[in-house]
């Protein structure tokens, strides 16, 4: 009885969210539409964090690494689409490479600077998209394989991922001739599919992002509802018990960690399409921790909750940052909110919503945990 009630509530929540996302273009101007598209991307990051933190019990403090990979792979490809990359002689070369090139260097992508040949396949946008999805998934798979097989868990996973994202950020900045260092990749072209150009401020681009977020949300929701998702939660609760029941715990952790990495990478790719830049700030520690904050505020055990948490915080932040004073104050408020959520709302807004719904329905909240959302 309790469960079917929960189930109705959940379907209602997912349904309203999806409808809201789909009707927003009727209400918002192009400027806000573009912004909201970016926040939906952050919502996708919230889903990735909830999956690995809430369901797998793995607090990845380096999710920005996978986001950044997706972003850079897409941005490299879009950079070469940009008119700014077409040289007077018709050759395709990112502008920053020309500016940074040693005098007399070859004016061709193959050898203008050491390693610049890596850019050659990115002339194909399909390659960029494929890499934006494959690379984060592959890297999270390799990373997950090495840490979970060694049975590293808890805070040590967080430290490794944290160190890794910092390391990657350094290398990214250091590879200035290839990545434009601190400045990141700007002045990008538009994503073009079948001759249609996705202007970041067009409604079509919004729907591209929105549909992707909805699909990811529902697919992930399906994934955690499967038997495999249930077993994943079992490994989170008691890895040894799961092992002695015959489950290869590492395999489950690696699989879902890779899915989480894939989602983060896809988010990075979409972010670049909507925002027209990629920057090393994507790999800042504070960005990765922000994602965790979004998920915690929304509800770490709820995919939809984490998604909404991310969108909500960013919308408020954007509103607050209209004035510089307010934006600084907002940062302080975010710090405070975070402390309060950890102390008083460990299940986030989702937990709060559930408790309220339970009280309205005059049913006591029976579970110490979030039911599957």
């Amino acid at each position: 009885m309790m469960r079917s009630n929960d189930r109705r509530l959940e379907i209602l929540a997912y349904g309203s969210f999806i409808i809201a996302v789909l009707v927003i273009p009727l209400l918002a101007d192009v400027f806000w539409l573009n912004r909201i598209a970016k926040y939906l991307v952050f919502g996708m990051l919230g889903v990735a964090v909830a999956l690995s933190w809430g369901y797998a019990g793995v607090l990845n403090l380096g999710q920005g690494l996978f986001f950044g990979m997706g972003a850079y792979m897409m941005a490299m490809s879009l950079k070469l689409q940009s008119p700014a990359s077409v040289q007077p002689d018709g050759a395709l070369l990112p502008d920053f490479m020309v500016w940074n090139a040693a005098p007399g260097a070859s004016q061709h992508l193959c050898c203008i600077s050491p390693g610049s040949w890596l850019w050659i396949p990115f002339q194909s946008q399909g390659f960029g998209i494929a890499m934006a999805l494959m690379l984060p998934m592959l890297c999270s798979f390799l990373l997950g394989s090495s840490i979970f097989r060694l049975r590293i868990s808890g805070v040590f996973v967080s430290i490794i991922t944290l160190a890794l994202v910092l390391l990657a950020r350094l290398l990214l900045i250091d590879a200035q001739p290839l990545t434009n260092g601190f400045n990141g990749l700007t002045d990008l072209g538009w994503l073009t599919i079948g001759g249609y150009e996705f202007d970041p401020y067009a409604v079509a681009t919004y729907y591209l992002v929105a549909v992707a977020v909805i699909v990811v949300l529902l697919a992930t929701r399906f994934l955690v509802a499967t038997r495999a998702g249930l077993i994943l939660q079992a490994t989170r609760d008691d890895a040894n018990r799961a092992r002695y029941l015959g489950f290869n715990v590492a395999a489950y952790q690696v699989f879902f960690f890779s899915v989480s990495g894939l989602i983060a990478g896809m988010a990075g790719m979409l972010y670049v399409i909507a925002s027209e830049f990629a920057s090393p700030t994507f790999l800042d520690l504070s960005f990765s921790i922000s994602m965790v904050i979004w998920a915690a505020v929304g509800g770490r055990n709820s995919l939809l909750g984490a998604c909404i948490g991310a969108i909500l915080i960013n919308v408020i932040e954007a509103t607050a940052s209209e004035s510089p004073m307010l934006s600084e104050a907002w940062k302080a408020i975010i710090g405070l909110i975070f402390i309060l959520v950890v102390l008083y709302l460990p299940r986030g807004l989702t937990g709060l919503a559930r408790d309220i719904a339970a009280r309205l329905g005059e049913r006591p909240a029976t579970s110490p945990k979030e039911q599957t959302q």
Partner: protein
Amino acid sequence: MTEAALTIDGLGVSFAGFKAVDTFSMVVPQGDVRVLLGANGAGKTTLMDLICGKTRASEGKVFLFDQDITNLQEYRIARAGLARKFQIPSVFRELTVRENLTIACTAMHGVMGNMRLTSTAQEQDRFDQVVETVGVGASLDRIAGALSHGETQWLELGLLMGQGARVILLDEPTAGMTHAETMKTAALIRRMQGTHTLLVVEHDMAFVREIATRITVMHLGRFLAEGTVAQIEQNQQVRDAYLGNGGIR
């Protein structure tokens, strides 16, 4: 003569020079409820750790029926048909009783094989059977973390049954239980006896008399004696080991 379900052959391990289990051998025939006795520090729990793959043995072999399971990964030993219950009850505390048992009754262990929403008929049968045996039908939708100590222990026994193990190791299944709970556990174990072979570590002699078909006694990591409850209670060597200073070395 029934088939040997669990064969331990010269098993040993040492920690920093101390031989916790020392060339220990025994055979448990199928269908037995074998109780492992021994004073504290005799190596009973370590022996179980060696059998189930938690600790790697430095010498000797373990066979589950005909299969050599020595030093395999824990999940491989579990898949071969061996289950282990720890002293501290371990269940999936944030999941419901139903979810706990569903997981245990899952027949396929791989990730891809479990990309499904429903149970197979065979899994459902086993689930129903376990629910009936353990008698948790009324609390299926409760969160496991909210169960009482006794209920948690029984749920864990249910998990072991659900996983379809042929041999089950139980480490002090009645620790911290009231008398009534202990007796319920004994009844549960007797119900399991027909389909499972059990190896039980236990101190409570009243409980041991209830369940044991035979007893094996360990002392300082070695095999000391084996026999029926009556034989062991009469055995002078066992009395010396338990009551004396046990100074064999």
